[in-house]
């Protein structure tokens, strides 16, 4: 299979420079073993004052507010919000169906993942990546630091489309094995016969914050078929006979709208961020404008 990476860079330097000013927003804060740029619910050794509480045996004397003690004759310790990092898990669908489109959905997914990953690394978050089809195919363990961007880009550039896709088993397995909770960005065309609900439920169960980035080509959104056709599924090989006429167009539109509505309702119910994007939308528009608009980055 061909590598996804074209001869050009995944992301242009100018674009990377603009990404540096962004940060991934999470609706929740996660406990992490490393101090980061993100305020933790844990009150501790941060620099930002949060509250007072009564001194208890064993508290660090350095945090006793002596001014309060002199006035009230009681000992209070200052509480600070501890700034922690968040782990961003980038799950990129590399099944065969992702090779379609111009540009291909996989190329679009790789660039999107690279951009999100770079934002995370620039913000001292941990970023890991997983390429999956019906199982994790390749994995890049979560890592921090701007320098890790090269490893992430190399990882993403080496992805090739292969196999069938199964998000449910992939997500369930990954969520169960991964201890670092965090933002779980799934970039896929979501064409799973088994649906996405079991996988999302497993991720939520393990306290991940899933974000579904749904990639679709224009041809998938508004196919224009003419004549008698036998459509063959690129992954399963299943065939559907279709006559490209007005009735078929109407039926497809109905099935598509029902499918997308179900997805949106499911994500709303499961508190999963859902973003559907056509691959015709430029990447910089997606990241800098649309993702900002929906509050995924800031």
């Amino acid at each position, binding site marked *: 299979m061909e590598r996804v990476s074209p001869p050009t860079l995944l992301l242009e330097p100018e674009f990377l420079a603009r990404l540096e000013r962004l940060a991934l927003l999470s609706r929740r804060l996660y406990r992490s073993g490393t101090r980061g740029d993100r305020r933790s619910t844990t009150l501790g050794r941060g620099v930002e004052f949060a509250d007072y509480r009564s001194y208890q045996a064993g508290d660090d004397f350095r945090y006793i507010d002596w001014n309060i003690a002199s006035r009230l004759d009681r000992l209070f310790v200052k509480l600070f919000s501890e700034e922690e990092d968040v782990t961003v898990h980038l799950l990129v669908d590399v099944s065969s*169906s*992702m*090779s*379609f*489109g111009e540009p291909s*959905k996989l190329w679009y997914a790789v660039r999107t993942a690279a951009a999100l990953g770079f934002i995370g690394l620039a913000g001292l978050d941990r970023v890991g990546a997983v390429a999956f089809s019906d199982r994790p195919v390749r994995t890049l363990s979560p890592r921090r630091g701007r320098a890790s961007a090269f490893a992430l880009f190399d990882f993403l550039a080496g992805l090739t489309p292969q196999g069938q896709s199964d998000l449910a088993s992939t997500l369930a397995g990954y969520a169960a094995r991964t201890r670092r909770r965090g933002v779980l960005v799934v970039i896929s*065309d979501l*064409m*799973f*016969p088994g649906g996405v609900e079991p996988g999302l439920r497993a991720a939520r169960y393990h306290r991940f914050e899933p974000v579904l980035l749904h990639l679709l080509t*224009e041809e*998938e*959104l*508004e196919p*224009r*078929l*003419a*004549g*008698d*056709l*036998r*459509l*063959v*599924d*690129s*992954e*399963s090989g*299943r*065939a*559907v*006979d*279709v*006559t490209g*006429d*007005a*009735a*078929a167009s*109407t*039926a*497809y*539109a*109905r*099935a*598509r*709208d*029902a*499918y*997308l509505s179900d997805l*949106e309702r499911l994500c709303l119910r499961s508190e999963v*961020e*859902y*973003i*559907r*994007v*056509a*691959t*015709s*939308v430029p990447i910089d528009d*997606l990241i800098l404008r649309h993702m900002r608009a*929906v509050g995924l980055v800031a």
Partner: protein
Amino acid sequence: MTFDAPGALLWLALVPVVLLLHMLRARREVRTVPSTLLWERAARDLSSRIPVRRLERSLLLLLQLLAISAVALALARPHVSLPAAAGGSIAIVVDTTASMRATDVAPSRLDQAKREALTLLEGLGRGRPVALISSGARPVVVVDLTADHGAVAAAIGRLRPQDSWGEIDAGVTLALALRHSGRPPAVHVFGDAPPTSPAAVWHSIGRGGENAAVSSVQQRRDARGGTRLLARLEAFGASPQQRVAVVSVNGAEVERRGVELIPGTSSVIVSALGDASGIATVSLEPGDLLASDDLAVAAVGRAGFPRVLVVGGPNAVLDAALGAVPTGGVSRADEPRPQEWSGFDLVVLDRAPLAELPPGAYLIMGSVPANFPLRVRGIAREQEFRTSSATHPVTRLVDLRGVRVAEALDLEVRGGQVLGEAAVPLLWAYEGRGTRAVLLPFGLAQSDLALHPAFPILIANSMEWLAGGLRVSPGGSVVTLAGGLREASLKRPDGAVVAVAARAGLFELPDLDRVGVYVLTTPRWQRAWVVSAVDSRESSLAVRPPHARAEEGGPRRRAPLPISPWLLLAGAAIVCGEWWMWARTVPVAPVAPPRRRGSAIGGGR
């Protein structure tokens, strides 16, 4: 609307076939898509999986059906009859065949036809183009399309009947070939035979009646060398007829015999004429509605057989063979001088050196004329007849198998008919351009042909076939050698004499359209041709109904308007339009864009 070829409407059976083909699923184009997930859900609503699909409104299908229907209708050659356009041209076709002499309408059918034609002519508007066609043995345009109605009326008055048989449809075809402003004329036929073409309006002439005829007369030689005259008599009508048959030779009555003629059968009377020679006639008395077929003429005795000229050296075998067949006399010449052959009916060329032969009848042995469709490739030796024609009159009852030829001219045949052959053609016959010929590419001395029983039969058959050109059917034409003369006179059976001028060394006689003897007289020689009898197809005077698709004339004068060209044009236009649409590939109705939500980016409108 009527159809000339209604059988072609069977092509309309293609319409349900096309519908069936359209309903059957065509072989599908296989296309790989990212996922069939949505299409599988959509297919539940569709009938795509059914091997036949319901008919939907399809412009392409409609065009296909229209094209097939148009072509099928065009092949059926439909036409509608419209009132003749006032400004259109008219072709008047007058039947001048023998039956138009019948007097069942006074004074004759032809005169009645002339009257009706003149009435039609008078009713036409001034300046309307009119043509006149005489439809006899051969149709002739007497007056081409002209606005001069006076000239047409005069020409109608000059029409005279023939004793010949003819097809009225030939006259209609000729009339339709005329054009005025690119359009054919409306055709009006005046005669007793209905045209089959629906394009013609038929004005029926005649009331019908009883008739009897001498349909043929021939001479035969009896065992003693005498002449017997055979005449066939026929009756036409509903009831038997009592007649008297009178046989005369050179105007002298020889025999008178009462006969009863039964319609639907023919009677043959035989008269022994002994050694009489001259012109024999057989006539029926009393006369009836059609007088011209009551008389038949034949040359009998020596006058009835060809005068033969043998050109070449002495040949006892040939002389003996010619002596065994009836002839009007045999003359000899050592050198071929065609200018001296005018007085002979048949020339036998026995190894005579030849250049080109003028029109005539020839029996040729051992040489090839330069103007015959033959080429001599060389000499063929030791040949033996393997086959001979079983159907040609020259080889009737002649079995040439086993006849050996020591040396023959190797012929390359470019026309005519090979009647017998070994490895090379050995017997050849030709008819055309005023010439009849039988050719043996070898001399009798170079073959054992004369020793075979087939030889005298072959000579007799050849003489009879070659001399057959002397008997002319009514309306036939004759071309004969002028023999260096410039002018001759032709005496017709009715006694009229017309001058005939030579052209290119030939006398081309006008159509011999009357029964009787035609005599061509020159200062040096005299030749006669006999038009024996009226064709029996002209003797029935029954009134015939119009053909089913033809239209009988009368007050309704209508002109047929063929629709086929327009239908073909429409069919072609439809096919072109369908091809154009197909080439453009009719796009499928677009899928409606998905509804836009806040989380949807792109892909919608």
